[in-house]
């Protein structure tokens, strides 16, 4: 009897390779945005000189900052959003952290950020924001393991409102989602202005 159970699981190490950086502006505080684009809502600010822990990086809108012009954005879970990498000293113009979608949370915007959403991986909630009085609802469409989806999380509350909904994703499981706007319906909606979509993981 050869090699009994030779493929032994070595204990699944989950992705985490956070990097550190330092915010560097001309002196003003730096906006922290809900999604990696300058059009997204600023959820708070972070002071010049602050140390930040960057969980992941992704491309977004182009920004000109202290370190030149670039499209790289840093996701800082402790701040609840994204900051432009052009204002962060990381000792590198390139990537210092993994692509976003590593399971520490994420955010996206519909085309013009009339709809914004975040996935909170710590307890698997979608937070869906309507930021524009355009007559449309903001909606997240999401897909799950096994071939299921899309499911929807609607915010039909109008401009300036937030919807918060728990979604069932098993520990370590993936969820792929897009942020769109649409006319609310209980049937299959006609999604518009969707983001490209990102995969995140439940903690």
């Amino acid at each position, binding site marked *: 009897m050869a090699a009994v159970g030779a*493929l032994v*699981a070595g204990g699944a*190490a989950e992705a985490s390779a956070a990097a550190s950086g330092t915010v560097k502006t001309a002196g003003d505080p730096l906006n922290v945005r809900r999604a990696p684009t300058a059009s997204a809502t600023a959820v708070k600010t972070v002071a010049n000189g602050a140390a930040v822990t960057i969980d992941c990086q992704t491309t977004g809108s182009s920004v000109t900052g202290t370190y030149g012009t670039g499209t790289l954005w840093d996701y800082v879970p402790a701040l609840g959003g994204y900051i432009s990498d052009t204002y962060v000293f990381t000792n590198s113009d390139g990537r210092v952290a993994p692509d976003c979608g590593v399971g520490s949370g994420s955010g996206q915007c519909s085309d013009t950020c009339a709809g914004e959403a975040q996935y909170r991986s710590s307890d698997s909630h979608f937070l869906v924001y309507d930021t524009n009085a355009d007559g449309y609802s903001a909606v997240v469409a999401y897909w799950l*393991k096994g*071939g299921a989806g899309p499911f929807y999380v609607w915010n039909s509350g109008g401009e300036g409102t937030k919807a918060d909904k728990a979604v069932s994703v098993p520990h*370590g499981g993936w969820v792929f989602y897009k942020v769109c706007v649409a006319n609310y319906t209980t049937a299959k909606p006609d999604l518009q202005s969707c983001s490209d979509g990102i995969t995140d993981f439940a903690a």
Partner: protein
Amino acid sequence: MGQVNRRKVLLGGLAAVTATAASAALPSWANARTTAAAPAIHDPFQLGVASGDPLPDSVVLWTRLAPAPLDPDGFGGMPDATYAVDWEIANDAAFSSVVQSGSVSAVRASAHSVHIEPAGLQPAREYFYRFKTSGYISPVGRTRTAPAAGAAVNQLKYCFTSCQHWEEGYYHAYKGVVADDPDLVLFLGDYIYEKKSGRTAQERNPRSLAVPDDATTLALYRARHGQHKTDADLQAAHAIAPWIVVFDDYQTRQRTTV
């Protein structure tokens, strides 16, 4: 140009468009990165396992590492690094009697797809196989080699399937395939469709393509193929028996006229 290898062409059907599956066929630079720097990943076996094109002494084994299988860039959430993937073939589903094993590199150039062609298997035999990488073990697949040439065969039980548009029907028929316990599954094409359904919403099922753009690039084909492979019933049907697959017109751009 070398001789066209029929098995590799058919394999292209099985793996659809996840590029040339055999890492041995890749240029040397594709393997240049070492696995030492490969970042940790989430469970990459989200697309199941598959086997196909059985011969009396071999059968193709397949999987693809894709922890985030719907990502529009087609890379399935895999970092840009090479991952060592171990494989085993056994006589039993518990892998207490392993008959062959090995290790291959899964590389980004082939979207971390894995293609194994074992040699020296026994004809008309049932085997079980699985893969392992980064601390994760794949689901177990069952396959079967072809009878020896000229051997008397009392029975060949096969299922036939085709034309599985993601948006136009659920794949529950594969539950029947699994229940029928076939020796072989024949797939006659249109494993994926290059475009979304043209039917009205009322005629479609509630499933939609995650990346609905017409498939015009390798990345879009990989994302499309990956989404199909997330279906639990389809995965089960691949894990129960080897498949022999061919292309049909919708798998290529705009109903190619042949």
